[in-house]
């Protein structure tokens, strides 16, 4: 066969989401790749300019559909900085709890999709099944399984219901056992190791140069986790370790994510203990929970009045399950944010695709892209 370009996407089993990977192949070898994004571009940054501060939260859940809480948290932190609001401590703990459950949920989703790319069929179902337990917990206190709309500028919507923490601990116990099962299915399998070792290598230098963050960077031996390096919310009070591996290949990324889930369990146990013993308010003072921080009632005829808030610019960065996400919110004192800009980790991770795909086999593309953990919702926004 001579060289040819094939389009893996936008409707292709390899693309988890809607994007297109153009691959130049010679036989089974990959010569060049060219990712094409934009099939899922909804203009969230533009729509945000037309919404009240709290209404943007509904968009954040749809930004990354497997890690909605992380994006809510990201936006909320930036908006609170732009509006000069401090949330109460219990709200911060609840946010951290949501974040970490979301990390487990997102990693389980990744696990399911990743093993499916390798042709492993039953772990796909196991991952989805166990993720459902996490979603059940979300549903218990937010009322929705995917689009939570739980955090508010200045706090969170409501407290967890009674009995929630015990239930959550049971789920954590269950998950602890499952992680062992996942390892038996993957790391215990010679075929898995044959497929994934020395695959998709992206060394630390290339990672930094191409803006690759998150588990991919930590799998390359760089110890970098914003929860440790730049603690937001209450991560400073919590004891946990940063997962890290050195091989920089697909196996290393698998190990890092698995270890992160175990660390999330550890964080969650501490947070649940704290929540049991420290009741408190959910919202900062004098903030209605539904309309947006600069309280902006409207008359029946669209007649706007506002309380003026001082101008400000907010910048926040959180360690999202996929990597490092940043938000930049400009508040010009109006009802709506003047400009909202998000930095999606997967955006950068995909942009380096040429570095870690070229030179491998066509059959290696799905596991490598699986180990990147692509979420197109947040790439295209």
């Amino acid at each position: 066969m001579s060289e040819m370009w094939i389009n893996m996407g936008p409707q292709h089993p390899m693309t988890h989401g809607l994007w297109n990977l153009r691959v130049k192949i010679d036989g089974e070898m990959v010569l060049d790749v060219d990712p094409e994004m934009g099939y899922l571009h909804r203009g969230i940054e533009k729509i945000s300019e037309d919404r009240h501060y709290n209404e943007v939260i509904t968009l954040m859940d749809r930004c990354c559909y497997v890690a909605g809480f992380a994006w809510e948290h990201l936006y909320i932190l930036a908006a609170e900085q732009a509006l000069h609001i401090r949330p109460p401590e219990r709200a911060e703990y609840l946010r951290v709890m949501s974040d970490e459950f979301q990390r487990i949920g997102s990693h389980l989703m990744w696990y399911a999709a990743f093993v499916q790319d390798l042709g492993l069929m039953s772990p796909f179902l196991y991952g989805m099944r166990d993720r459902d337990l996490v979603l059940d917990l979300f549903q218990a206190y937010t009322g929705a399984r995917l689009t939570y709309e739980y955090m508010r500028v200045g706090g969170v919507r409501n407290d967890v219901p009674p009995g929630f923490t015990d239930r959550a601990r049971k789920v954590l116990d269950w998950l602890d056992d499952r992680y062992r099962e996942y390892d038996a299915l993957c790391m215990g399998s010679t075929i898995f190791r044959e497929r994934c070792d020395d695959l998709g290598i992206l060394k630390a230098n290339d990672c930094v140069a191409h803006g690759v963050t998150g588990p991919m960077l930590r799998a390359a031996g760089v110890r970098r986790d914003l929860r440790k390096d730049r603690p937001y919310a209450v991560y400073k009070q919590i004891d946990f370790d940063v997962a890290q591996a050195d091989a920089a290949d697909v196996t290393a990324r698998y190990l890092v994510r698995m270890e992160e889930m175990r660390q999330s369990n550890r964080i969650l146990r501490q947070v649940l203990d704290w929540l049991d013993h420290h009741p408190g308010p959910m919202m900062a003072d004098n903030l209605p929970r539904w309309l947006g921080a600069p309280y902006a009632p409207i008359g029946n005829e669209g007649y706007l009045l506002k309380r003026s808030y001082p101008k400000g610019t907010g910048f926040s960065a959180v360690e999202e399950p996929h990597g490092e996400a940043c938000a930049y919110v400009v508040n010009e004192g109006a009802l709506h944010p003047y400009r909202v800009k998000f930095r999606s980790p997967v955006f950068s991770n995909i942009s380096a695709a040429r570095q870690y795909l070229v030179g491998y086999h066509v059959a290696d593309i799905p596991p490598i892209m699986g180990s990147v953990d692509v979420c197109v919702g947040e790439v295209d926004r």
Partner: protein
Amino acid sequence: MEAADLERALRPVLGDRLLGVEPFEGTAGRVRFRREGAVDLFRTARDTLLFGHLTMVGGIDWVDHREVVYVLWSDTARQYAILSADVPADDAHIETASAVWPSANWHEREAWELVDISFDHHPDLRHLLTPDGYVFHPLLRSFKLHEPEELEVKSRHV
């Protein structure tokens, strides 16, 4: 690292191309510079100040002018820094950062198509999120949300 440190390090290199460094909560500071000093600033930030990681590049449309915002991360200082440069709206261009940080490539493509800021010497300035041949720049204030634009878009691959 604080704003004063940044100013001390950057002033000798940039001179009056540095407009000032203001403190910014949660970061090392916000560096305002003229676009003529972009290349020198990028190189100094990466090589001297060890901001090895370009986190994002974004554009803001202030109607009369546009602002390019760069966010950097340093693994040694474990801090973010923000660079921002104003470019006039009728002549919005600035030197690319992708020669210094390859990660700027896609971010600049995005800023180019959405906020209409052109990046000189960019290796691959193509549409990323919007279709090829799309003539509008959605994140400009003049692009109204509620008035859908009619446009015939050619497909990317023939």
